[in-house]
């Protein structure tokens, strides 16, 4: 059992190492895709390597250890990568007196920088296009939005944001 736990932890360490390299060299892939695809790829590689060593590998303990550590990391990564709240804190840290007017943060960050970036993400992902009249969803965007809409209804989530 101890060997299985160690193997899972070693696999997670390999994942972290892979990630630190991949995030620096992947300029065209979004970090969110890099971290999730790397987690799956390293897990697959870990199982193959472990099974090739010629010793019995306890699949569930190894998998549980790896995915427990990976899920904890991915939770933290999600906050660092996309959290508006943390970004507001960093903005304030860089302001004189570590303070700013409410309207200043709202205009500069929420209504401009963050908003424009998300509109770009929607276009780059092929979910929306900007026409002469304004933004509209593409067929791909419509399919994704209808799934989200259905899931939000299932979990009684009135709206997101």
């Amino acid at each position: 059992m101890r060997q299985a736990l160690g193997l899972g932890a070693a696999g997670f360490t390999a994942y972290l190492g892979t990630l630190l390299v991949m995030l620096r060299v992947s300029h065209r892939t979004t970090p969110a895709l890099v971290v999730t695809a790397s987690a799956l790829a390293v897990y697959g590689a870990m199982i193959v390597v472990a099974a090739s060593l010629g010793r019995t590998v306890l699949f569930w303990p190894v998998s549980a250890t790896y995915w427990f550590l990976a899920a904890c990391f991915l939770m933290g990564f999600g906050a660092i990568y996309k959290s508006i709240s943390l970004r507001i804190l960093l903005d304030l840290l860089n302001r004189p007196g570590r303070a700013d007017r409410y309207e200043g943060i709202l205009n500069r960050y929420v209504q401009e920088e963050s908003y424009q970036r998300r509109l770009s993400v929607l276009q780059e992902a092929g979910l929306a296009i900007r026409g002469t009249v304004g933004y509209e969803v593409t067929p791909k965007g419509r399919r994704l939005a209808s799934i989200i809409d259905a899931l939000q209804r299932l979990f009684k989530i009135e709206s997101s944001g």
Partner: protein
Amino acid sequence: MIDWLDFSLTPTVLYALVAGSALPIYLALIARLTPFSGRKALQFLLSSVVMIVLWIGLVAAGPGSHSAGRAEIGIGVMILVAESLFYLEVWSLLSRSYTLGLLVTLYRANRPLDEEELARSYRGGSGLSWIMEQRLSGLIGAGLVREDDGMVVLTPVRGVAVACLYRLSIMVLGLRRTG
């Protein structure tokens, strides 16, 4: 090679897989109970409690239950936590994602919207200022910022420490853009 993989499941681990994977069912049911309506964090917390209680019940009295060792219990707990965090990620995307919120706003409008219209229609007409108010109240509640005469001020110990830790994490991970 597959011969070296031992897929055998103890009841403790099997029950963790079953109780954890059913978490969306508890969440969908609890979200329909009037006292928890609109209280998203509480809904998820309660669903997690149901999941843990169900697992403990199954381990103690389910078919094939036996005196599980510490390692076995530990594996079960790790499976439950991993499954909960996976669902929490998906559920957070559904309930808190700014980008998906904009996509759903466009979808529900069923016509092209210019930038200003889209910003105004965001979150069923709440507009983008809703995000600011919602995030700011969270930051104030956590003691990371305070409001002072129309100014938002980073608190000297906790706020600065979290912001510095955040900046360090961005550097370590090599992220070029965040938020």
